[in-house]
């Protein structure tokens, strides 16, 4: 009966489904439902990855399965509903259920009960990123004002790879860290939020500014946080591994995600315009931090010693207030040309964040103020500092005819500079702190412990620089698309690389093969060294409709 009803109300839209020149019919995902236009598209993807780093060499690290439906129901020309429904899981949990290497790779003894199977399916109760209703919102258009109300992504900024002004939605980094979809703008890993977005189009051109409009974003009080699990607390081979700890010591992190509360409301405002070819935005945001600092809550003895450890260091994950202003600009620099053909596009983005909380080490490395164990720094586990984060990027299509007669190579490079003002003292990314020598100690080094060879923290440098480089082109009428993305942490001399080839034959199947890799200090887990163990080759097969 249901199918009969569906057939009565849900049929290909006549004009768009008309046979083409070959007589073949494609609806293009266009249908009519109760007399209104309905678009439905989506995909089903199966992927598998195998480790190439000695830690997991030849191991089948992940087998992600995802199915996504994206739909839009246009009730009137000015009112529509939009949604994305998704299921995402990792079949590796089922496939490697009984293997010891997989159990070890996906959990620590201390966190086992929390981590087991958390990432097997997004639908798991303990997974904090349930995405069956990934997005759901209403679009309302009027002459001067548009509203978008519901669960959505709002993407600001000009940067690729590192997120600066893209500050509204947090990100799920638990699968393949930042290389899973960095080349696709994080569309699959950004975590949608329940928001009210209001866009005002005044239809005026003050000072010659064209396309002027204003966006106002309101999160009524349900913020979320970036998901990147230190200590494998949520499991998964891609969780940052448990750092070096003294024998008999373990660390307990208490999740203190911001609750749903009107006091946790977030606000964003943006002005957009085009002044003589300079596309610019001015942005402001007030809300919650999406990354935590550790707040020590004191150690305690573990009785009984069920995991072989007797001392537990306890921390709360603390999410403070975030206040920032920034701008973005872009322009094509047409006075510069490559062999009289194409010009580069300049992208610039900068933000100034007020009172950003940073984990405080003390005046000297080894003071360990953040642990709460150094009486000289009582309560000084963090300090708030202003920080400037900026990016200058160039995109350039360049023709290299001997390598590709038909199409250009797209080159994109970016330099990121982060600068912390008045950085008196040492600041650290706290969990990644001890060298492997500490594993042989029974007790942790007690503060102050300056000049200890057991301490080599991943520092927050006063000026931190990153460089990215991307190149891609198309062969065979865009059916073969190779792409290489490279990331470089200029302070920690750590590297990341993603190389892939997409095969776009036909309209439905989209195979992809590739390599993800990181290089860095794996001992104390600095920067990309955290994920060196996860270097992998992968294959994906997507069916889209």
């Amino acid at each position, binding site marked *: 009966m249901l199918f009969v009803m569906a057939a009565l109300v849900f049929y290909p839209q006549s004009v768009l489904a008309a046979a083409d020149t070959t007589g073949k019919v494609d609806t293009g995902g266009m249908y009519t439902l109760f007399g209104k236009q309905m*678009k439905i598209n989506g995909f089903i993807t199966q992927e598998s990855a195998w480790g190439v780093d000695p830690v997991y060499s030849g191991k089948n690290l992940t087998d992600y399965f995802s199915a996504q439906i994206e739909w839009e129901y246009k009730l009137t020309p000015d009112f529509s509903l939009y949604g994305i429904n998704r299921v995402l899981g990792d079949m590796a949990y089922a496939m490697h259920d009984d293997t010891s290497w997989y159990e070890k790779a996906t959990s620590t003894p201390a966190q086992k009960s929390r981590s087991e199977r958390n990432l097997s399916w997004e639908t798991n109760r303990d997974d904090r990123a349930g995405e069956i209703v990934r997005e759901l919102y209403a679009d309302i258009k009027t002459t001067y004002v548009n509203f978008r109300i519901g669960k959505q992504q709002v993407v600001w900024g000009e940067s690729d790879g590192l997120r600066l002004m893209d500050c509204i939605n947090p990100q799920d980094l638990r699968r393949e860290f930042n290389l899973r979809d960095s080349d696709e703008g994080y569309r699959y890993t950004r975590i949608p939020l329940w928001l009210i977005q209001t866009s005002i189009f005044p239809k005026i051109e003050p000072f010659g500014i064209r396309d002027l409009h204003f966006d106002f974003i309101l999160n009524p009080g349900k913020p979320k946080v970036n998901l990147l699990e230190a200590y494998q607390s949520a499991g998964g081979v891609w969780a940052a591994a448990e750092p070096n700890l003294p024998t008999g010591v373990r660390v307990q992190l208490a999740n203190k995600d911001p609750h749903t509360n009107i006091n946790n409301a977030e606000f964003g405002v943006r002005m957009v315009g085009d002044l003589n070819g300079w596309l610019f935005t001015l942005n402001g945001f007030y809300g919650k931090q999406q990354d935590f600092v550790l707040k020590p809550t004191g150690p305690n003895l573990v009785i009984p010693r069920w995991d072989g450890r007797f001392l537990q260091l306890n921390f709360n994950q603390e999410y403070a207030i975030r206040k920032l202003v920034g701008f973005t600009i872009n322009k094509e620099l047409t006075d510069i040309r490559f062999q009289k053909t194409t010009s*580069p596009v300049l992208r610039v983005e900068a933000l100034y964040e007020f009172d950003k909380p940073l984990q405080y080490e003390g005046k000297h490395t080894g003071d360990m103020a953040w642990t709460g164990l150094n009486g000289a720094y009582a309560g000084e586990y963090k300090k708030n500092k202003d920080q400037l984060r900026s990016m200058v990027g160039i995109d350039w299509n360049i023709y290299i005819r001997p390598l590709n007669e038909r199409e250009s190579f797209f080159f994109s490079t970016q330099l990121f500079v982060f600068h912390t003002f008045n950085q008196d003292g040492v600041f650290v990314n706290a969990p990644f702190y001890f060298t492997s020598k500490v594993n042989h100690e029974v007790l942790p080094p007690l503060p102050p412990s300056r000049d200890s060879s057991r301490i080599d923290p991943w520092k927050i440098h006063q000026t931190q620089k990153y460089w990215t480089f991307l190149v891609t082109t198309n062969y065979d009428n865009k059916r073969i698309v190779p792409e290489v993305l490279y990331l470089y942490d200029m302070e920690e001399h750590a590297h990341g690389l993603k190389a892939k080839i997409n095969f776009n034959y036909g309209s439905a199947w989209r195979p992809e093969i590739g390599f993800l890799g990181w290089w860095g200090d794996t001992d104390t887990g600095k920067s990309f060294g955290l994920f060196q163990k996860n270097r992998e080759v992968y294959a994906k097969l997507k069916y889209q409709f």
Partner: protein
Amino acid sequence: MYMKRIVIIAFLISAGLVFAVPSGAEQVPPWVKQWQDWAKSTGNQDFIEWGQKLASPEAIKLGKEWEEFLGYNAVDMVAKDTKAPSIKPGLVITPENVAKYEKELRELFPYGFDWEVDRMMGKGVYAGYNYSPLEMVIVPTTHAWNDRGYLEATKKYSSTCKIGANDALEGWVAGLPFPKPKNALEIVHNYDRLTIMGDNLNSMPLQFGLYGKDGQRERVEKIELHWNNYVGRMKVPPFPTIPGFEDIYEKGSIVALFPYDLKGFAAVRTRYADPKKEDSFVTYVPSMRRIRRLAGTNTQDPLVGSDLSWEDWKGYWCKLSIHPSDYEIVGETVVLCPSFNPKPIEYSEKYGGWAQRYWWERRPVWVVKIKSKEPTYVYGARVWYVDKETFAMQQEIFYDQKGRIWKLWDWCWRWNPDNGELDYWNPYMVDVINKHTSILNHHIILNMPNLSEDLFNLRYLSEQAH
């Protein structure tokens, strides 16, 4: 008394004839009559209907005005051409009988355009790749004309037009800048300023069918297309310029509908009037969920997975003051061209491929060669057939920098004789080097009143954003 009756009867009959027969029915111009007579002789209803369409008072009036303005009509010009006598109206040339007419056909496709014959025979550049064979239905030559708006604007403004530095057009306001072109560059400027054959255009959807080496359709892509002229307007007020946009020639916007990995990509392209100023190309990239500026100078890459680049949009969309070339009229002759087809091209599975069947006729053309001066430009040269009555390009050959034939393009025009509106039926482009074909399936509406500016700005892109 008897004589008086006869005189009265004769008078009444004469008066009756005057009122019973539409005025002008006996006065249809020869260029209509020859079409109607031939159509009637075939008994084919499509031809007869088209003959009637050509004979509407509005069509005849406009046809006469264009003829008077240009000083010629195609029917008379073609009548003087005596080559290929076997290729006559009523003949249907197919891959099965083309051998019989090959020699004469090649005479009717001079300057290299006999690839149309190769296309039917699987010879030359089509050897091993004849998956889009033709059925040519030969019809009489039509006296054709372009839009009344172009006629009136050309009369009003063309006297101020001239070629300036870097081959740029100067003094243009609206219409054809050079209705009596003296050289190839003026012909090229004429076609450039015909833009989309109107003030605005929608194609919803525009479908790209992409065909691989085996002739099978390997992909289909669909987009919504909008286009708007901001200067040179002659059909939809305001005329001739939209206030506040005097610096912009035209804007186009697209949003991709299908397939999924393309869906949602949206772009607004702005072509500025300043001959040295590059296009603006602002996009919404769904994978990034972000509005992103791409290089407006990047006009030479293929669009989506097709064989067309921005340089090829509407046959030619090169900013010629930026990409210098030599322009030459290599010939003025009568050739065989796609005619004005009142119905879309018919497709059928025949001759080992998807055969196209449409009307062809002899037309007077300029043959224009554009040879790039830039060794880095995507094409070494292009050769066009340009219709002498409508100033529209009919067919095109693209040569690569090595001098090889690379791409070939033709289409037929949908034409409304009443007002002269032209738009595209199924542009066809084949890359004979890489053996790949793109067939565009337009659904065009021209000259819509009140087309919103919100189809051509950042708001449009932000509204496409999901």
